[in-house]
């Protein structure tokens, strides 16, 4: 009876959705660590935006870390959603670095908003990465 229930449930699901879910990439402690570091750094850097020299250096460190996260994510198999999210996160961080490269006199408010965007996005990704099947 239980086997019949399982078979009927499986047949009721869309084939592709089922395959995607079953073959889902499992929990990766490195991936979780990197995204947690990005979130933590963004939280700390956001509070240092009044110091222009420090913020410029923070922007470079952050963009290196989001680049690392993108490169790490893109070679994980069956991880399309994760790759797209890592690319978008990296684009947010690269934008801040470019701003400092073009004109180091970045407004503290802009710096704060950029790090807040990175922090919020990293928190959303971290929430899902941490719940990957183990």
């Amino acid at each position: 009876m239980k086997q019949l229930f399982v078979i009927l449930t499986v047949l009721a699901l869309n084939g592709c959705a089922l395959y995607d879910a079953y073959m889902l990439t499992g929990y990766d402690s490195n991936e979780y660590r990197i995204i947690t570091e990005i979130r933590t750094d963004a939280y700390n850097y956001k509070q240092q935006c009044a110091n222009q020299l420090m913020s410029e250096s923070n922007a470079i460190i952050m963009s290196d870390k989001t680049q690392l996260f993108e490169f790490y994510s893109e070679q994980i198999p069956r991880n399309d959603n994760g790759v797209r999210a890592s690319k978008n996160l990296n684009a947010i961080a690269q934008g801040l670095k470019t701003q400092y490269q073009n004109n180091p006199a970045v407004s503290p408010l802009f710096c704060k908003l950029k790090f807040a965007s990175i922090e919020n996005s990293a928190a959303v990704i971290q929430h899902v990465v941490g719940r990957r099947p183990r």
Partner: protein
Amino acid sequence: MTLDTLQSYLVEIANTSDPTFSQFASDINQVVEQAKVGQLSNADVKEILEDAQRQLAILEDMSQLAFKEKLNTVLTGLITIASAV
């Protein structure tokens, strides 16, 4: 569409019960207000709003992934039940 109309949409979303989108719309409205009083340049506002679009895309991708994770948990549970028979 005027800026006032767009801001009224933002206020409408900010007053909804969804905590994620309510906060999101409220933050965007604050950015617009700061731009209006000259605290942010137009280029800065454009960059921040583009970031907001990227954040929405991240939310969408992560929501799909969370759904797949839930489905994976169900499948694993069903397989465990079936194996126990």
